[in-house]
């Protein structure tokens, strides 16, 4: 694979970078922006990532208005947080009615506007503004976004009934689109934005991935989803390829990366692709951003890494035993190693003579692949796709009895919303917990606060009005109060010692707080610092972890542990 070079990569007027948190989207987007600007192009970079570190990377304060980046002529930047926008939107809807409508009505409104759909639509709204503004179009040669719209948002906007029902009449029911008011006026803007995204001559989607199995699988999924809705001009950037291993940990990483790259999903293999090696410095500040895509790199010398001792996962296990917890969730965004941590916890709890039920949502759907032969551990698998499909089929079957094909399509898209998926998985959790066949249940994913509040409010509402339809399954009703009881439940936040994963985890925590769900422990996974590596490139990465480990220590009041980096950590407990 060749080194990624934005000048020769055949890029278009609009560029979208996409990839899971922690793969280096913002780094790739900013390095592209700076290199194009240095080559004399007029460039604008827009961040719509709620965990954006554009300000840290450029070491300058940004706002949602384009402003010039000091030190790079020809480059403007804007930072837009869709979560802030969604909050502002919610507040603007709710505020005028405080004291006018009863408190229960205010709460009801507020929660319905707190889901992920609101945030997704708020993001799309921002994309649309930048994609259709003629001044921006003319002023810049290249316009770069460090995130891409979600498939759900794009599909919503492409449904004919979404436009005709909602935008024209705005009175028949609409879907997640209805999250933003005044949409009718924006019909033309949205349509133009969608057309631009689907025009291969105007828009390139840059898929950023780590040279690592789980990251590649995730990238393939995103590539296919966005291609299906028309974003077909795609390129792949493999970020963080280790080049010259010098000690044992770096050799292990090197071997793993090369093996995973050889087994890359075939659909990705056919895309134009380029790589960016793992660098021996943190890519912040203009000087480093300029360096990251250069062939010539500064020479690095090994420095003695700080001798560090961190608490291990055993500390968490001891506390779970002491507190006699009944339900333990490992929570975090994809790719942080929730499943591995859950399996480790299950094994360690079993070693303490606990009967454990381990429920996993890991997509490797063959239970026999888990190397768990301890009779004290029962393993069950929640197939997220299958439970969602089951729920969707159930609804669609009912809907087809009464609705036209157009309407059914419309409902079908509602059923692809992130909220629906969360609800479907929640029902599956509830069934596992209800089996009551163990001392402690360990689940490798956690419900969001939003889901819990939705379910809770429905429960209250049902009590109030004795509503008979749409009843919540008994297992779900039984689980709800237990999830808010710190004597029974613990939600362990699993994260990586990097910017984006830590920010994302903090957000997940805030959501749990809203729903009063108990979470005390944090686990920092995949720490290079803990491997005591002597490889200069890895050491540079490792020393940058300290800042994030310390931040986790602070926010968790020292209820934290650190696990060292392992090769193929997603698969470490699997045999093939």
């Amino acid at each position, binding site marked *: 694979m060749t080194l990624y070079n934005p000048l020769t990569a055949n890029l278009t007027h609009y560029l979208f970078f996409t990839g899971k948190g922690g793969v280096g989207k913002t780094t790739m987007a900013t390095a592209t922006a700076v290199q194009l600007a240095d080559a004399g192009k007029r460039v604008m970079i827009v961040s719509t990532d709620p965990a954006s570190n554009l300000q840290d990377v450029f070491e300058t304060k940004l706002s949602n208005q384009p402003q010039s980046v000091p030190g790079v002529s020809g480059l403007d930047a804007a930072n837009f947080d869709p979560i802030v926008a969604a909050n502002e939107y919610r507040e603007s*809807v*709710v505020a*005028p*009615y405080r004291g*006018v*409508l*009863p408190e*229960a*009505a205010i709460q*009801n*409104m507020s*929660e*319905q*506007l707190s*889901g992920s*759909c609101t945030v997704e639509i708020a993001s799309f709204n921002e994309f649309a503004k930048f994609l259709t503004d003629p001044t921006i179009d003319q002023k810049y040669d290249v316009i770069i976004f460090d995130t891409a719209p979600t498939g759900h948002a794009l599909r919503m906007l492409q449904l004919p009934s979404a436009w005709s029902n909602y935008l024209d009449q705005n*009175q*028949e*029911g*609409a*879907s*997640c689109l*209805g999250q933003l*008011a005044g949409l009718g006026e924006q019909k033309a803007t949205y349509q133009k934005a969608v057309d631009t995204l689907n025009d291969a001559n105007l828009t390139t989607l840059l898929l950023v991935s780590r040279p690592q199995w789980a990251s590649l699988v995730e990238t393939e999924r995103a590539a296919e989803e966005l291609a299906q809705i028309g974003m077909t001009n795609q390129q792949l950037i493999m970020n963080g390829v280790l080049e010259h291993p010098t000690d044992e940990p770096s050799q292990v990483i090197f071997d793993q990366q090369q093996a995973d790259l050889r087994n890359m999903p075939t659909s990705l293999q056919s895309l134009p692709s380029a790589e960016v090696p793992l660098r021996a410095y943190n890519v912040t500040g203009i000087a480093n951003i300029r360096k990251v895509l250069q062939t010539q790199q500064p020479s690095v010398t090994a420095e003695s890494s700080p001798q560090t001792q961190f608490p291990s996962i055993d500390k968490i296990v001891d506390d779970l035993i002491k507190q006699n917890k009944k339900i333990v969730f490992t929570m975090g965004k994809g790719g942080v190693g929730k499943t591995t941590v859950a399996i480790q916890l299950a094994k360690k709890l079993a070693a303490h003579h606990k009967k454990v039920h381990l429920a996993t949502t890991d997509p490797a759907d063959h239970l026999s692949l888990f190397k768990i032969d301890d009779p004290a551990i029962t393993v069950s698998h929640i197939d997220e796709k299958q439970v969602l499909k089951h729920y969707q089929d*159930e*609804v669609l079957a*009912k*809907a087809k009895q*009464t*609705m*036209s094909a157009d*309407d059914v399509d*419309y*409902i079908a898209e*509602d*059923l692809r*919303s992130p*909220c*629906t998926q969360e*609800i479907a998985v*929640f029902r599956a959790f509830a069934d596992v917990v209800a089996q009551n066949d163990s001392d402690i249940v360990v689940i490798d994913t956690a419900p969001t606060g939003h*889901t819990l509040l*939705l*379910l809770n409010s*429905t429960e209250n*509402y049902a009590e*109030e*009005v004795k*509503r008979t*339809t*749409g*009843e*919540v*399954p008994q297992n*779900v009703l039984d689980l709800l109060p237990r999830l808010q009881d710190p004597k029974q439940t613990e939600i362990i936040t699993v994260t990586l010692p990097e910017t984006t994963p830590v920010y994302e985890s903090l957000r997940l925590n805030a959501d749990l707080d809203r729903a009063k769900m108990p979470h005390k422990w944090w686990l920092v996974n995949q720490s290079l610092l803990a491997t005591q590596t002597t490889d200069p490139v890895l050491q540079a990465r490792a020393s940058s972890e300290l800042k994030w480990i310390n931040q986790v220590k602070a926010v968790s009041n020292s209820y934290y542990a650190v696990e060292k980096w392992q090769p193929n950590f997603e698969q470490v407990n699997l045999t093939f």
Partner: protein
Amino acid sequence: MKKVEIFEPALCCPTGLCGPTVDQNLVRLTAIQRSVNHSGKAMIVRRNLAQNPNAFVRNKQVAELLKTDDMACLPITLVDGVVKKTGAYPTNEELIGYTGVATEQVKTQ
């Protein structure tokens, strides 16, 4: 032309599908609403607390009901401005009565 207004509690989406459970009532209502409105003989308008809170304040009867009965009064059905039903969605038969439209969908229910 008869005008039926239904004031609903806040929903993520009117089908209720994004909500915690499938509310068959909402799916039924969405279908009937479309069919009645397409007939051109009557109109059913739904007002959702999350998306159109102003309607709940503007309509004095609705605002008053909310004050006295709180959320329990929702959903509220008005026909040509007169409150016909509170605390539950209208049945198909009631909707035929209100609108005078017996659409195919409504009949086959």
